[in-house]
């Protein structure tokens, strides 16, 4: 048995179970983060080699911000795990374009992964649920000392039906997003919750039928999907001249960019159309920021503050830092840079991941040393200054 690993996992699960409302202090996070780093340094050979190259290791790292970050691209060429890869219970793959190799995230256990999904989801997407349905949701999840699967679910009849614009986890076993959708349907979804991408096709007709029915029955709904699936749906509805006024309490969660999947649309435009065509107010549309290489997701704070905002905050078991790509250091106040994530729930793979997304710190908490941040999407927008083709151009040909 892997005692160190399981002990660490138990402590992280307990931290997650405390819920989102109670932040971790810097010392508290630091303690666990350094232990996870030492664990990963010892178990993951390519990571250790990289740390050694940077002359950083458990002996030299005093603060979590010094822990070396692994670029997401490294997940394409290495199996980055702290356990024998053969023992993985699941592997999630990045989508990417066809010519690229996929990045792979191997999971030692689903327990930690799923534990990290729930309190965060409740906080940012069902936070007002207590007002709708009594107080079960937040207190049950957040207040429970052991958030193991099967505890703290709101009663079935009070749940919102989830209309999910992705394939099911059975159809897409390597999609972390589908897996997450499966978990949230299981934990929080109402009776008629469904996946609407079947055999790779978004079933718009079915969706329209079910939306009609929900509208007729004054049933609020919860729409979840990728931004490009929403665009696809909205385009269809616009062509058919269809409009919905979904019941109060309805909400939507959208995630992911557009890259090459449909016509691109700004967040403002997308939310405007969702409000206009589906009747879900902007303040009840939440962007989720997540990625295959991580276990934890990050959400816009809109539902909690009751107006549309792009601000996100890391939950107590994670930290986000914005890195100035010119210096490799944390940006000065409110500076733009690359989003770097420290995710304790990633203890069996890599905790500190350097993403390719640009973002900006939009606020800071003195107490825990955490920031609020906005994500501006993948760093692919550098304007060409000269006359040379770039990697992006050449890829398109």
């Amino acid at each position, binding site marked *: 048995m892997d005692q160190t690993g399981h002990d660490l996992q138990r402590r992280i699960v307990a931290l997650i179970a405390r819920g989102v409302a109670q932040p971790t202090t810097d010392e508290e996070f630091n303690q666990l983060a350094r232990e996870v780093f030492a664990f990963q340094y010892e178990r993951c050979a390519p990571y250790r080699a990289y740390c050694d190259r940077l002359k950083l290791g458990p002996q030299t790292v005093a603060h979590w911000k010094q822990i070396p970050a692994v670029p997401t*691209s*490294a997940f394409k060429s290495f199996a980055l795990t702290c356990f024998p890869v053969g023992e993985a219970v699941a592997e999630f793959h990045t989508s990417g374009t066809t010519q690229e190799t996929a990045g792979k995230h191997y999971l030692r256990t689903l327990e930690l992964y799923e534990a990290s999904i729930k309190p965060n989801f409740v906080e940012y997407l069902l936070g007002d649920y207590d007002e709708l349905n009594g107080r079960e949701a937040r207190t049950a999840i957040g207040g429970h000392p052991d958030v193991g699967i099967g505890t703290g679910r709101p009663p079935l009849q009070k749940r919102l039906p989830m209309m999910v614009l992705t394939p099911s986890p059975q159809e897409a076993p390597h999609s972390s997003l589908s897996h997450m959708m499966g978990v949230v349907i299981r934990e929080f979804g109402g009776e008629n919750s469904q996946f609407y991408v079947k055999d790779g096709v978004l079933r718009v007709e079915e969706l329209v039928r079910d939306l009609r029915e929900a509208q007729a029955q004054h049933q609020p709904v919860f729409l979840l999907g990728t931004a490009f699936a929403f665009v696809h749906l909205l385009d269809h509805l616009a062509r058919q001249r269809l409009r919905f006024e979904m019941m109060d309490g309805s909400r939507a969660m959208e995630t992911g960019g557009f890259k090459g999947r449909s016509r691109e649309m700004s967040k403002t435009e997308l939310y405007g159309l969702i409000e206009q065509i589906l009747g879900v107010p902007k303040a009840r549309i939440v962007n989720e920021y997540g990625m295959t290489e991580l276990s934890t997701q990050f959400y816009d704070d809109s539902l909690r503050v009751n107006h549309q905002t792009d601000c996100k905050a890391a939950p107590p078991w994670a930290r986000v830092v914005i890195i100035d*790509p010119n*210096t490799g250091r944390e940006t000065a106040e409110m500076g733009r840079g690359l989003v770097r994530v420290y995710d304790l729930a990633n203890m069996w793979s890599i905790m500190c991941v350097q993403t*390719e997304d640009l973002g900006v710190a939009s606020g800071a908490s003195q107490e825990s040393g955490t920031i609020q941040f906005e994500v501006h999407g993948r760093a692919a927008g*550098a304007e060409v*200054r000269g006359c040379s083709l*770039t990697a992006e151009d*050449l890829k398109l040909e």
Partner: protein
Amino acid sequence: MSATIEQIREAISRTREARERVWQHRTTDAVITVLAQAAKNWLDPKSPWRKRAVEQAPATTGFSGAMVNEAVDLTFGAITYESLGELLDRELGNRRVLDEFCLRGRAHTRAMGPRLIAHFLAGNVPSPGIVSMCCGWLLRSANLVRVSTRDPVFPALFLESVREVDAELADCVATLEWPRSELALTQTAVGDADAVIAYGDDHTISALRQLAPPAAKFLGYGHKISLAVVAKEAMTEENLPRLAQAAAFDASVYDQQGCLSPHVFYVEERGQLGPRKFAAALAEAMAAYEARVPRGQLSVEEAAEVVKFRSGYEFAAASDRRIAVWTNPSGGAASPDNEPGRTSYAVIYDDSPAFRASCLNRTVLVKPTDGYKRVLDAIQKFAPSISTVGVAPMNERAQAFANELARMGVPRVCAIGRMQRPPLTWHHDGRPNLADLVSWTDLA
């Protein structure tokens, strides 16, 4: 500041009038003399033109002052009485055909330049725009030059420097600036043009082609990519330092943002020294060049591209022996307690033969190869996008390789170290500069 429609119209009529005056009594030889003198006036290390460019151009081009200084030498060093004359003689047979009927074969013939040329410059590399302006002058056309927002400085200063030598000739050219999105302004500019010369990405060029009058001559120069090949004969102890220095110059000039800037160096195996030695020597030479001519400041987006491109290699290099990375010693993948991970240059050795475009801004890939044949296989599918292939040494084998590249449609092969110095007479993107613009009248 954006020009207005009135300013564009006024510039067109002013340059046209000037052209009528000049056309009456100026010989081509006189024009060559003026342009050569103006260019020469930039080259003195203490030249006021140079000084002004070094002061003003960094803000828009993003180059360091030292880089702008290099750009002055590269751009104006190529423009001489001899090279301008040679350009005319080579492309038109004889420079005097622009002045009078000349006997060509059995018939007399003479050439006329377009009455009005609209030039659309792009990007921050000054040389193509300056050459384009020279062509307009040589053909004694009226020239409306829309300068690039990335470099409004060089064209305007060059025009001023010509004015200093010859005000009447200078009046044939007007430089203006307006945003690409102002379609009405662009339409006004091309509406009366007899020829349009456009630089930019494919999208810009096809948009201009749509706007240009159907009868106008149209020359479009798109974005391109370059690479280089080092053959085993060049990989000797004795040759390496000089070779690396030449390669570092080609890769570093214009911060690798030019279409002549190499992204990949293929190095043939089985030489006296191996490809890794080349990579290490190249890194050292790029460091030396960086010390003398620092790379410009990058925007957050540009720096993010660089980090994105390099970080995967940097991670892999720690455990994968097929990959190695050299960056400036104070840099490397940064962490808060390290020195800042400066991005000023990097050489990445990667033994995968696949051609890959760099993130630009002085990040070069070095890849081992079995020989020229393998290089051809690797670049085949990118051939239409290639501008220049540098080679070392320029020997018989390299010439056979050049023949294969010619068959692929690659427009230029040259020695490493010369990649950024095309002669004025080169076929930019495989085509003549002047011959495509003139119309002929035969007397036969």
